[in-house]
């Protein structure tokens, strides 16, 4: 498995982790980290693998993470409202909102659900207008 990709490591880890008892789970986590380090994998690769593992674990628990880019921070209430709206709309068991701040958006919101990005920011609309005018 020397040349495996992060998602392949994550899948192998998950297939063992999901069947393991609590004691074995801890050992599994330690061994996985040790293996990646021994194979000389860089920080980006390890970060990516951990993200993939996290995604798999959350998916199996019916949890979906949605990245929300805004200009100003969302309050806890707003996050809760958004999460509930998405749970109802998209049929997920639980939605966790990860709020990132980006002043370059000017105003509006950008949602990332899985691989799909929904851009409702003013910046995105201005970029669309620019490409239309310079066609």
């Amino acid at each position, binding site marked *: 498995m020397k040349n495996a990709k*992060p*998602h392949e490591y994550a899948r192998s880890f998950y297939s063992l982790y999901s069947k393991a008892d609590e004691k074995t789970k801890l050992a599994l986590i330690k061994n996985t980290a040790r293996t990646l380090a021994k194979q000389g994998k860089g920080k980006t690769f390890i970060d*990516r693998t951990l993200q993939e593992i996290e995604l798999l674990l959350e998916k199996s628990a019916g949890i979906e993470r949605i990245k929300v880019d805004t200009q100003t921070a969302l309050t806890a209430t707003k996050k809760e409202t958004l999460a509930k709206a998405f749970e109802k709309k998209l049929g997920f068991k639980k939605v966790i909102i990860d709020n990132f701040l980006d002043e370059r958006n000017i105003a509006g919101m950008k949602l*990332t659900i899985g*691989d799909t990005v929904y*851009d409702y920011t003013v910046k995105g*609309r201005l970029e669309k207008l620019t490409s*239309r005018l310079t*066609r």
Partner: protein
Amino acid sequence: MAKNTIVEQLKKDIAYFQPKGNQKTEGVVMEVFDGIVNASGLSSIKASEMVQFANGELGVAMNLLEGSVGIIVLGSMRGIREGDKVTATGKILEIPVGDELIGRTIDALGQSIDGAGDITPPTGGKKSYPIERIAPGVITRKSVDQPVQTGIKAIDALIPIGRGQRELIIGDRQTGKTAIAIDTILNQAGENMICVYVAIGQKDSKLRKIETLLRERGAMDYTVIVSASASAPAALQYIAPYAGAAVSEYFMDQGKDVLVVYDDLSKHAVAYREISLLLRRPPGREAYPGDVFYLHSRLLERACRRNKESGGGSITALPIIETQAGDISAYIPTNVISITDGQIFLETDLFYKGIRPAVNVGFSVSRVGSSAQIKAMKKVAGTLKLDLAQFRELEAFSQFGSDLDEATKNQLERGKRAVEVLKQPQYSPMIVEHQTIVLYALTRGHMDSIAITDIKRFEGGLIDYVESNAPEFLSEIRTKNMWSDEGEAELKQVIGDFKKIFNS
């Protein structure tokens, strides 16, 4: 465009702009190496869909695997890093097309590389054609029956090419393959033909020489050059022939006839092999991927002649393949030979013997044949191939000159004169009217009494003499593609008169 018009157009565009949200699919770059990027995400991407990297470079999704997408980068790898975002554009790879491409040299993405500024689309807006397109169906096609005059006697007489045909030019390095293609392009002046020259993996110096020659001879008035040179990434060399086909299809869709030269498809196959191996596709014979036949077959099937109901027009393809040590039974040459409608085989031995163009008439064939010849040429060239074949058979006996009968000696002498007549200098295409006169004189025995060393001088002099003394004969061929009995009698007389002058 007047300033007010631009402002009005901008105001209109802004007024009609609907500020809805923008949906796109994103991924993350995981691996970057040798012109290839592996990205995660992009789960809803389609095969051959274009993607854009964070630094603005474009790529094409080639490998759709579980959990990752293999992307070939259509430009520089500089500035693409692990962790960068990559966005699907929702578009299949396409190239801007239009009449404004004529006279220009562009790269495989349609950007100008001739230093003459950006290519300005017409006021109607930019038009684009997909790089990959399904070839026209059988019902929309018409049989090939109109000639493409290459201006090269050996080809127009013995291996005639028709509009809509695919004729392969194959031979070792430095045997004159590109020379034949360029001579053909030069001879299309006034023939109502658009030419597209696609340079794949060629040296920049060679391309500059070709471009300069075409410009000096006025051929750039009807030619487009598409180039992915040896310094271009393998991805652009892979796409270049398809870009050339897309440009050709634009002109064919206008009902025009197009000649497209792919120089050369051997380098194209090597570029595709490089990409496939980097994408970890399983290697087959000679390490080429399993679909290397399809690589060329789908390209060359786009050349055809269309019937009137489908818009008319044609694309004639002249693919070029370079062989190693004359081996035409190698993998890529045999693939392309089986796809095309004939081949022109050039031999190194003939080249160094001074027979240029070094066409091996025995191994060369045109599967369209005399359907692509005017009547006049059919009449004079009919027996020429047989004469040459018999000459080659008898050549081995020529060392026994004193033991041969009269008929055999005459056959040998006629054959030597035929070989001499078929020699032609580079960049000197001959119009078909002149070719028919020269071949008429040859095949009717008028050159039998001329010394071999004087054949070229006789040929040049005869053409000038007929131009001055029997121009109506030439215009009869030009307008009716054939001469009348009276015209032939006049020609015989003119040839006889010229011989007297020549011998005196």
